[in-house]
């Protein structure tokens, strides 16, 4: 087994709207395994902050674009939690 697989990536996540209220901050740091997908991050997040379950949806953006659940996260990605939008 490669030693790399035991390492974790520290990722920075931006939060807006109600996500900011749930996390009580506009930026949080989380540790994920290398090769983690957006779906893995979502799972950890929902486990730690169950209030996200109550929302209509939780989407993610990476580098300022919406991404699907199977998108693999890199260390230097700008990750953002996108709770239900309500502009206009």
């Amino acid at each position: 087994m490669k030693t790399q697989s035991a390492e974790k990536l520290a990722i920075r996540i931006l939060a807006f709207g109600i996500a900011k209220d749930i996390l009580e901050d506009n930026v949080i740091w989380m540790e994920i395994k290398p090769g983690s997908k957006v779906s893995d991050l979502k799972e950890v997040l929902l486990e730690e902050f169950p209030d996200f379950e109550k929302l209509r949806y939780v989407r993610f953006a990476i580098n300022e674009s919406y991404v699907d659940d199977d998108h693999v996260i890199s260390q230097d990605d700008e990750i953002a939690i996108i709770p239900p939008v309500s502009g206009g």
Partner: protein
Amino acid sequence: MECQIYLSEQPLDGNEVFRFLQTPASGGMVVFTGTVRDHFENKKVIRLEFEAYQAMAVKEMERLAAICAEKWPCHRIAIHHRTGVLQVGEIPVIIGVSCTHRREAFAACQFLIDTLKESIPIWKKEVFQDGSHWVSAHP
């Protein structure tokens, strides 16, 4: 198609939108204006607070204008949105479209405002006398 995207705390200017939309080829121009209303269900709204993921919101608005121009033959598209605190009666959004004929201008304008509300990363909080809530956050 030329587009004008605007997202800031500054008050919006409908005249600027009209000026931008005018081209000699444009026979139809449709402008939608959203206004802060004074109630949510039976509660009195004191003010709205808008927040945006600024860089992404601007990118998504540009993408939205491009998608719209593929669907309808638009000459110009303006999407102006405000952030920050807005009082009742103020204007958080203006969408404008100019086309050769009115029919496609109406359709394009409707598409732009409907899709903006579904996909652009902007959030509004309604503030009441006795609390507040993030609009549309919960089912």
